[in-house]
């Protein structure tokens, strides 16, 4: 099956946030309690129950004028996925047949390493300590439906389809460069930016933390041999992310790892 992608055009976005509500609706995620802090960006961050959000930014430009940007924040579904590389548990993060990065909660051990692996600061964790993020609506795509956000976007600021057709669409709209065409081996979520990515809050050259590459190349294979992997993972986590604050259910972790060993 050919690789599919989302194409997001912030200039077309009206900031209605129907994509946020559609995502919560499809994934049956509870609403977060928010309060007015003088900004439209609600909720204030991605979370275990918020997989996509629009950031609103008032940008001063030339004299007297300004720009108001609405930028989608969500998992970018990298081809060269840092989260998959660092994840110590095979199958907790997996590549869908359409090219997205999906999660399997049954297998996630809640080690939070994926946050260190992600160049876009996307992974967040639910009350169960497990990673939760956008799956590119793998369950919808399998059934020939558009991802919930793309389906609901009435301005077509978010569109979805074969990667080539998405690139062609961006070109047709006058975008010679598409953010995500080549970055990290190609992102599953591509942006058509009018200006430099940093104006929109995106890294010019996103890259995976070197520690993650080190882990992926040399240490991860070893982890499969035993529980020691978890210890190394924890150590690495300590260096890369900092001390683990939330209490992860240790019993579960052991079980998960044992299951993997059985395979």
């Amino acid at each position, binding site marked *: 099956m050919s690789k599919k992608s989302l194409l997001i055009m912030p200039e077309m976005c*009206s900031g209605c946030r129907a994509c946020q509500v559609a995502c*919560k609706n499809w994934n049956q995620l509870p609403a977060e309690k*928010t*309060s007015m*802090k003088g900004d439209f960006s609600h*909720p204030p961050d991605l979370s275990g129950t918020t997989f996509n959000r629009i950031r609103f930014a008032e940008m001063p430009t030339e004299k007297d004028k*300004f720009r108001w940007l609405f930028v989608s924040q969500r998992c970018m579904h990298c081809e060269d996925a840092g989260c998959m590389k660092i994840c110590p548990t095979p199958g907790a993060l997996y590549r869908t047949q359409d090219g997205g990065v999906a999660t399997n909660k049954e297998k996630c051990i809640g080690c939070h390493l994926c946050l260190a692996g992600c160049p876009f600061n996307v992974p967040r964790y639910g009350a169960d300590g497990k990673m939760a993020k956008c799956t590119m609506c793998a369950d919808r795509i399998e059934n020939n439906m558009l991802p919930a956000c793309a389906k609901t976007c009435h*301005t*077509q600021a978010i569109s979805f389809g074969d990667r080539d057709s998405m690139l062609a669409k961006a070109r047709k709209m006058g975008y010679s460069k598409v953010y995500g065409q080549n970055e990290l081996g190609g992102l599953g979520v591509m942006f058509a930016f009018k200006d430099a990515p940093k104006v929109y809050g995106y890294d010019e050259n996103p890259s995976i933390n070197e520690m993650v590459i080190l882990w992926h190349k040399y240490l991860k294979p070893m982890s499969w041999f035993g529980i020691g992997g978890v210890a190394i993972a924890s150590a690495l986590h300590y260096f890369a992310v900092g001390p683990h604050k939330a209490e992860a259910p240790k019993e579960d972790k052991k079980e998960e790892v044992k299951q993997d060993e059985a395979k």
Partner: protein
Amino acid sequence: MTNHYVDLKNAKAFLIEGSNCAENHPMSLRWIMKAKEKGAVIIHVDPRFTRTSKLADIYACIRPGTDIAFLGGMINYILEHHLYDETYVKQNTNCYFLLKPEFKFEEGVFSGYQEGKFKYDNSSWGYQLDPQTKKPLKAKSLDDPNCVFAQLKKFYSRYTLQTASEITGIPVDTIKLIADTLVKNRPGTIMYALGITQHTTGVQNIRSFGILQQLLGNMGKAGTGVNALRGEPNVQGSTDFALLFNYLPGYLSYPNHDQQTLKDWTKSSGTFRAKFLVNLLKAWFGPNATPENDFGYGWIAKKNKGKNYSIFRIFETAVEGKMKMLYVMGQNPMVTSPNLNLVHKGLSNLEMLVVADPFMTETAAFWEKPGCDPKTINTEVIFLPAASFLEKQGTKSNSGRLVQWCYTKINPPGEAKTDLEMVDLLFNRIRKLYAGSALEKDQVFKKVVWNYPKENMYETVLQEINGYNLKTGEHLKGIGEIQPDGSTSTGNWVYAGCYANAKNLTKRRDNKTDPSGLGMFPGFAWSWPGNMKVLYNRASCDEKGQPLDKERPLIWWDQAQKKWVGFDTPDVPVATDGPDTPNGQKPFRMSGEGVSRLIAAPYKDFDPKNMDLPRDSSSTPADGPMPEHYEPVESPTANKLHPKVASNPCLKYPRLKADQPIGKHSEFPYVLTTSGIAEHWCCGAFTRNVPWLNEISPETYVEIPEQLATKFRIRNGSKVKVWSARGEVVVPAMVTKRLRPLKINGEEVFIIWMPYSWGFKGLSQAASTNLITIDAGDPNTWIQETKACLVNLARA
């Protein structure tokens, strides 16, 4: 809308003024963005840089309540520089018609002003008429000083770009740029919403659009028009069916006390509309309506001509103790009406209040208003649980007049009933109570035909609306079959044909077939009138009846078939009357003149065969035949054009002195404008009970420009007290670059903005903005001036 939503994709220019369509009509964006992809220019004129401005190519920040000055500046610029479509204007408007020489406009008032009565005697505004035919006399050239066009030019000559700029705060260059852009990019469309209507000059704001579009030749064609984006999914349907107090269904004038017979009514409204009234009476009274008894016209209650029956007067008469009982359905005035303290006082003074709603609204629970002691209120309140929009079937008419059947998705919970069930039960009970009455005033309850079968109630009502040939019992196929003699009936003449050949056409869903390629989809649901998509489409053709825009043809005269044909239903009086007949040259046949009216002169059109009763009567706004700029009741500046006549001279405010104080600029230095937002809908009764929507828009707030915030040391999110002469609220601040000070008549004016969708009930509760807004109203429609009032603010 003169056009329709999908037609927006055909426009090359958009003037979006007084509308934040990106937030409040998001689906319109689908078509606007399609036009934008093809290179269309989007212009947004609004006091606040909104999510719509973000998508626009040109944004102009306008002071609230000055649209007439801005549009006047553009109209004058177009007239002065001969940028108008002369051929179109000559063919389609009343430009040549001669006005009476006594017509005047001086010092801010038109001739005929009746001092102290807040109204005009408009007899001097009329045309010079041929004594025999009573038709208007026409000038030989547009230079004749008494002709409409010359008078229009003279009137608008005061609106120089400089004057327009000083009143509105929009730079001269920007006004000029917008005018030039509209001239260069045709077809062009105008979209507006409550930002235009909610003013004491609401009707005249829209009249300005009409004049501008006529001059540009932007009417009756694809991608053009004056397009009202209605505020609710079925508000178009509501107004079609006489939600407004001064109409009967189908926009027939509501009878006054000085029109006791059908003939009296016809004298003012004309025989063309009397035919439709007869059919309405036949639909209501069935066999009881006969030519001998005036078709039961006498049974309809007449309204007092001198009285105002608008929503304002409902609460005011309650305050005055004259209204005892109020039944509220589909509305939550305790959030949406202005000057809420007065609304609350009125509700508290009722003997009984009935509220039918899916949610316990602020109106239903008005005695829970913060600071109110329920012990002091004697009103008995009855709450009727109503089915929501998902729990009932029936039609919805959208802004583009598209009437779509909607199905019941889930059954209403518990004892909740649909509106129709409630009205049906109520009417049958009331009829029983009146059964023994011999009084003449109660006859209406006995004579009305009311027998809707339980199993098919909704479609039976639609069939009655469509109407019948009473001889054959067949459904009417269209307006053309309506007869004046009582042999047909229709509950709303503009809907005749929606249920033709025993088929409910509003259920059609062909979204594939579009022979025009212009997005008309004639097989998708049904549009009134007669499935017409673009009103006045005769104006899309030249005098010979051939399309002016070859890329976007709508209709044309087919000489071989000897009739008007095309992709749309031709908007002509008779389909077989060609361009060489008088009927073939009536591009705006719904006006008495048959052409559009640059100046809205009072006029009654007579048929040569019947010189006793007029055929049709053109409507004239109460406050003038042309739009003049008047300041809002609470204004931060003097009226630059005529300081002695600052606000609309037809405006009576305050109506109740004690409850309607007017704030002075010295005490209330800032302009407040209010509106809806994307995330919450109207009063918020529905949306504030949806946690997902409360998550993205958790509470009310006030947008404050950075410069003002700095002055008061207000930070983002900090609490701010905002108060007017009428009330106060405390809400969090949103400090923004999107609002900015304007230079008005040489002085700096600050505008702040608040959404109005909150109240003290539901899952998300916050102060109602309408506690501080003003309840002055447009003298034609009595819509509230919630877009402009004066306030003060401080850190709370």
